[in-house]
């Protein structure tokens, strides 16, 4: 109860809140919702910046592309790795001005404009009570006729796109046959993650395309350790979400302070349990115990954005061909 009173006193003594500088950050809807990481980040940053942090929510990349230079925001958070090239091409971003040495992501990340704030691997998550021996490799998954899958369409979902590029990296020109194989195991392909995950928890499929960090939610929030991610020998596709400073920012200094905050231990310490993903700049030893205990893939597979962009169309052609044959 104390904090609102202090805030009220502060507001009275320093005049209206409108006089304090306001940092406006464009974020995805999930991020700023009560159950996303937004509220804790807002509180943490405001405690150190003597400013007001305001999240504007919406579909981030379409908003960047439609609004262009008229976008009334100082910074953006929550761009998926698959969206970074398009976001960069809008020309709306300024250098973030941070030293990226603290990053602990498993892929090289040198980027003057975008800073990852979380990361994870896409993986097939299963229920231990329904699938006793999960496949230990992608190759084994292909050989197992007893497993049913539900996953997301690469045309409408970031995770689905990651799976498509994952298969493309592992199998290249043979991908059509791989998709044909997977099609036979596939219960259905959904538009978004929510539908697929809902179907999986209702028992419609043995495995669902999600993230290696998904089981942490069930363990920590629901005290349920029956969910696990199958770790494949070949390695897993890496995904992250990033933040950046807008060149047209009305508060460029605050925006860069926010970038520095993203790399701070305080911010990083909140990501695991608020975002159910790995923090991007925190040594493994400082992760919550449940996250430390999650099995990690040996190898990260990741295409730089130009390569990923070049592979999109041929990989989609293989996917469509294999899935509809």
């Amino acid at each position, binding site marked *: 109860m104390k904090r609102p009173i202090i805030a009220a006193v502060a507001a009275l003594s320093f005049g209206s809140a409108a006089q304090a500088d306001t940092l406006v950050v464009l974020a995805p*809807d*999930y991020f*700023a*919702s*009560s*159950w*996303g990481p*937004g509220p804790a980040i807002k509180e943490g940053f405001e405690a150190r910046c003597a400013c007001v942090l305001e*999240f*504007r*929510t*919406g*579909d981030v990349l*379409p*908003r960047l*592309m*439609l*609004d262009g230079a*008229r976008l*009334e925001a100082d910074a953006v958070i929550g761009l998926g790795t698959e969206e970074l090239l*398009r976001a960069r091409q809008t020309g709306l971003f300024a250098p973030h001005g941070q030293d990226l040495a603290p990053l602990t992501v498993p892929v090289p990340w040198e980027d003057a404009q975008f800073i990852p704030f979380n990361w994870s691997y896409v993986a097939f998550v299963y229920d231990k009570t329904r699938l006793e021996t999960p496949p230990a490799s992608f190759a084994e998954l292909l050989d197992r006729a007893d497993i*049913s899958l539900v996953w997301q*369409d*690469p*045309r*409408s979902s970031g995770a689905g*796109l990651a799976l498509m590029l994952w298969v493309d990296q592992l199998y290249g020109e043979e991908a059509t046959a791989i998709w044909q194989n997977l*099609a036979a195991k*596939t*219960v*259905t*392909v*959904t*538009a*978004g*993650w*929510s*539908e697929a*995950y*809902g*179907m999986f*928890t*209702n*028992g*419609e*499929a043995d495995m669902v395309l999600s993230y290696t960090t*998904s089981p942490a*939610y*069930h363990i920590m*929030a629901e005290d349920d350790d029956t969910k696990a991610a199958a770790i494949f020998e070949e390695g897993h596709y890496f995904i992250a979400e990033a933040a950046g400073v807008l060149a047209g920012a009305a508060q460029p200094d605050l925006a860069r302070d926010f970038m520095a905050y993203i790399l701070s231990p305080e911010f990083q310490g909140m990501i695991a349990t608020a975002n*159910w993903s790995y923090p991007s700049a925190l040594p493994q030893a400082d992760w919550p115990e449940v996250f430390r205990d999650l099995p990690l893939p040996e190898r990260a597979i990741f295409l730089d954005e130009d390569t990923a962009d070049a592979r*999109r169309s041929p990989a*989609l052609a293989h*996917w*469509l061909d294999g*899935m*509809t044959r």
Partner: protein
Amino acid sequence: MSARTARHAALALGGAVGAWLVVLNFGALGAVAWWADGPSALRGADWAAVRFTLWQALLSAALSLLLAVPIARALARRQFAGRGLLITLMGAPFILPSLVAVLGLLAVFGRGGLVNQGLGALGWGQFNIFGLHGVVLAHVFYNLPLATRILLQGWAAIPAERFRLAASLGFGPQASFRQLEWPMLRDMAPGAFLVIFLICLTSFSVALTLGGGPRATTVELAIYQAFRFDFDMGRAAVLALVQFGLCAAAGVLAWRVALPSALGGGMDRPVQRYDMGGAALRLWDSALIAGGALFLMLPLALVALRGLPHVAGLPPEVWHSAARSLFVAIGATGVTLAMALALAHAVLALGGKGGAVLEWLGLAALAASPLVVGTGLYLLIRPFANPRDLALVVTLLVNAAMALPFALRLILPALRAVRDTQGRLADSLGLHGLARLRIVTLPRLRRPLGFAAGLTAALSMGDLGVIMLFAEREGATLPMQLYRLMTAYRLDDAAGAAVVLLGASLALFWACDTWGRGHAKA
């Protein structure tokens, strides 16, 4: 008010509604095309999507209507305790958000669902719901209630005097069907078919999920892909135009098939049926009603059972957004009814081709891609105001336009009947304008108005399509909150929120519909 001014007022108001619909549907599309620097060519996969979309929409609409005719007929001629409640509950699938409806259907027909548990217990093979038949099943589940209700309105509109005359001529059930019910169906069914066909035309998530994958790609998904995967807004605009083209073609076709029933007017007596047949027919009707009710209500019951235990523990944000959604729903209902009444009067006043074009415009919103409309409105509003300040108002207006086709479909035939049966008397009494609306028209439109209001309110509770681009954290509607909960892995809370959504939609629908049915037997 003279007859002349009344006609001019009807044309002016209807014209204003028509102009707004043009802006909403084609202005939005134009804004997207203009932003994209013109159209771009479609690909082979897009045409495959068009073919699949047409095929599944045709099948779904035909099957929904084929099943609705005997069910509505059974409901129309039988009286039993709880009939009104059953009719309300049977309407529920239509107002459910697609995500919830799919999970409900899977609880019955999915791998671990009741049907497969039953088959397993009998030692029989598995039923696989995924495929074209799954898409059609889901669309029938969604639209059978709508078809049944539209046809029930048709049955209720057959004057009681005709049934008395039929009875005095010794008509049995078959003769009654030929002479009374078939002409009514020729009048009502094409419109119902058209509406359902259009609903299925813009299906996206349901079709993909139950279709089992990319084989079940619809035009709406192709639009989504053009937007989000290829960032080709020009192609998105062309695809949206193709969708309107299909809508126009279907509209022309439906009008060619539809025949005015020419059953004439009556004295608004309560209908008494004499063509009830014997015990076999009663058994047949009971089986139809029970079967239909089971098919439509079992998935809903499972959704409710899954979510009910979690309603009490729902976070306060869910209740706040429920209140916000109620505001949107009630506002949209008022706007829709006003638009539908104005448009229907103008269609009748204009008559001929002009009337037909206006009527088509009222239906066109059904074929509009929510993604294109949302993006287009965003582009149109931005030069004048901050779209986020208008998020709820835009949602309200778009929901109203999306519900207008249903309201128009229900109100227009009823208004036409009022004109044909009461028009000459009202004219000879010099009753025009508002007085005529109040004394002659509205009392006779009460039933379709109530039903249309219920549909609009319930549909607006569940709609998600347009708001996402405008979405603001503080302005979340209940369906948005449901998706947020799912994205945060809170599946139990999401199930609870789904029950709140279902309950609120049903309550709104029931309240309006009950008002509409008044004391009359529907």
